[in-house]
């Protein structure tokens, strides 16, 4: 027991004596052979950390957390900065068509423009997609953004297959048969979506959002569904797989953005631009002219409302390209003219189409009665017309006397023209005027006395006013002197002389009806007044 204690004391003394020396030794070695020490410790570090993670996992987490936290926050900050920069760039693009389209889309989708921008800046960068046969690394189908094409896609595909095989087989050997999902390089990454016999590699620039992963999965699902059998049996022939349909469908599925951008690369027929522009222009032009026309219409209505007469009537106004169409019914031509004139006072009218109809209402019995009355008054002022009427609506009866047929016709015509009635009865008699002219002669003579000529001239003036339906009756008379033969001769000579004078000298057109009486006229005593008996009496008679 005592020996044991002595041994312990010795050890302690030795430790005390050597400690400073050993510390000095370590310090010296550390400064002199840092590299050597590092190389010696390095292989142990991995195992040491692994061991520590196994036994003191939480300690490690706590120890690394502050460092990792700031690392992550720095990375996130950097990424956000890049994203914001991208957004700023987009905003700086100003009022580009793309920008306006995005604004509209933001409104339609009910999301903020910034959100859309964020999504675009992240999604817009699908650079290429490659459908790769898993075992051989052969590109079954591929499409690339023509602005940023990949160099040697077949080589890339082969290398990716090799890398994928390498990583999957060597690194993940002990895990649950997982496949390589992504290869990152610089600001880009290749997203690999694995199928049984093929995989889809999508090269994305920038941040890849969840949406792009979903799109890739959908695209691969489509490929496997449509071409799964061909891919499984693939022996080198690409014609079955690499067709237009796959390019189109995969392109569409992969990125809505790319699909939208696609038409940009195709040359559009100029008509596709011109036609909508033309239609838009036409639309605005129509809108403008319509506005001008409506305001002109308004101005015209206002003008009409101020007119005391025209405002009483319903007038339709149509304005087309500053041409005014006036339609409706007015009772007087005068009002129609008044309307046209008032239109000239409105500014902005190019042409006036006055299509107003004038229609005077005549079937008002009271109006008609007064019209008939005034018509009759007017007619009766004329010489040789004496008519009156009886009007019990709707029957009108006109009766009276006129000198001749011409006057009768005139009366009937006037009524028919002025009065619009279905039935009008005319009882108008033609009675020649009672004009009696006596021409006296000397005894045994047939010569016309000077007064006789005057009388004949006056008579002829009256006859000229009458129609030919009036006949002239010439009655030759004589006194009691002379033989009957002599009386006969002288009476006939007198009548013929007057007849000849009327027709030849005074141009009478009426028919002359001679009558030879050879005696004194009625009521004249030839013995007492032989001078009055020697005469020719001229009377007018209405012809039959």
């Amino acid at each position, binding site marked *: 027991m005592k020996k044991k204690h002595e041994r312990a004391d010795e050890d302690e003394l030795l430790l005390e004596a050597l400690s400073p020396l050993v510390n000095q030794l370590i310090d010296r070695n550390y400064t002199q052979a840092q590299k050597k020490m590092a190389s010696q410790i390095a292989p142990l570090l991995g195992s040491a950390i692994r061991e520590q993670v196994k036994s003191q996992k939480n300690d490690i987490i706590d120890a690394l957390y502050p460092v990792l936290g700031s690392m992550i926050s720095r990375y996130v900050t950097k990424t956000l900065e890049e994203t914001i920069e991208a957004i700023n760039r987009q905003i700086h693009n100003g009022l580009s068509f793309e920008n306006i389209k995005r604004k509209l889309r933001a409104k339609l989708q009910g999301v903020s423009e910034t959100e859309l921008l964020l999504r675009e800046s992240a999604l817009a960068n699908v650079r290429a997609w490659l459908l790769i046969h898993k075992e*051989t690394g052969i590109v079954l189908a591929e499409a690339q953004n023509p602005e940023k094409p990949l160099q040697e896609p077949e080589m890339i595909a082969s290398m990716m297959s*090799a890398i994928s095989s*390498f990583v999957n087989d060597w690194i993940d050997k002990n895990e649950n048969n997982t496949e390589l999902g992504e290869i990152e390089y610089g600001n880009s990454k290749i997203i690999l979506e694995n199928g049984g016999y093929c995989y889809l590699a999508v090269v994305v620039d920038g941040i890849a959002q969840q949406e792009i992963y979903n799109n890739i999965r959908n695209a691969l699902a489509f490929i496997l569904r449509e071409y799964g059998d061909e891919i499984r049996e693939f022996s080198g022939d690409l014609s079955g797989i690499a067709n237009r349909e796959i390019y189109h469908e995969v392109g569409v599925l992969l990125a809505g953005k790319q699909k939208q951008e696609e038409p940009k690369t195709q040359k559009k027929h100029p008509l596709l631009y011109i036609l909508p522009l033309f239609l838009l222009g036409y639309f605005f032009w129509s809108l403008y002219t319509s506005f001008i026309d409506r305001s002109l219409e308004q101005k015209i209505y206002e003008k009409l409302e101020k007119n005391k007469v025209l405002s009483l009537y319903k007038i339709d106004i149509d304005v087309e390209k500053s041409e005014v169409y006036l339609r409706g019914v007015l009772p007087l031509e005068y009002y129609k003219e008044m309307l046209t004139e008032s239109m000239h006072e409105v500014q902005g009218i190019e042409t006036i189409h006055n299509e107003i109809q004038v229609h005077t209402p005549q079937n008002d019995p009271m109006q008609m009665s007064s019209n008939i009355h005034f018509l009759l008054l007017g007619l009766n002022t004329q010489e040789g017309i004496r008519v009156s009427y009886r009007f019990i609506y709707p029957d009108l009866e006109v009766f009276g006397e006129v000198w001749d047929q011409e006057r009768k016709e005139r009366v009937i015509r006037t009524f028919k023209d002025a009065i619009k009635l279905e039935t009008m009865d005319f009882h108008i008699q033609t009675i020649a005027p009672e004009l009696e002219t006596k021409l006296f002669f000397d005894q045994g003579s047939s010569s016309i006395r000077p007064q006789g000529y005057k009388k004949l001239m006056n008579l002829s003036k009256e006859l000229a006013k009458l129609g030919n339906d009036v006949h002239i009756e010439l009655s030759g008379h004589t006194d009691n002197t002379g033989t009957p033969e002599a009386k006969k001769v002288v009476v006939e000579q007198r009548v013929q002389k007057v007849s000849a004078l009327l027709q030849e000298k005074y141009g009478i057109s009426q028919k002359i009806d001679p009558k030879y009486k050879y005696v004194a006229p009625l009521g004249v005593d030839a013995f007492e007044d032989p001078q009055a008996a020697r005469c020719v009496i001229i009377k007018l008679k209405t012809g039959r």
Partner: protein
Amino acid sequence: MFSYKIVVLGDFGVGKTSLVRRFVENSFDEEYLSSIGVTMSRKECIYKGIKSTMIIWDTEGRTEHSPIFKQYLLGAKAFIIVADLTRKETIEAIKEHTLLCQEMVCNASIYIALNKSDLEHTPVEHQSLRDLSLQIVSVYETSAKSGDEVEEIFAHINTSVVESSNAKV
């Protein structure tokens, strides 16, 4: 359109890469070779008017420490096993490579390229090599340096692949 994969394999230093480079002018960046053990080349071929693309996987030479990565052999239409005529052990290794090819792809044809024929060497009996497997189609004595038989071996592969593929159709 026709596209297929062939794999070139063999021991370290037998001249696989030189052989491929001789055949293909445009070879891919060789930096990858050291990273993952394979480099790729592409060659457009035409036979009877049929265009095809040959993707050549040039694997890293086998050494004691780095065996050939089996996965790279998958899906190949043909293999070229390269050996160095001047190094007997590389010729002996052909058997092992053949077995590996057979294991990975049971119906791919195998071509043997006995390289460096421009150098002095002891003659090698071709028949014994052919007898190694039914999949071995042909044995060529090639020289990457002079180009001897290089074009022929690749042309032979392309012809067989295109014809067999047409026959299937």
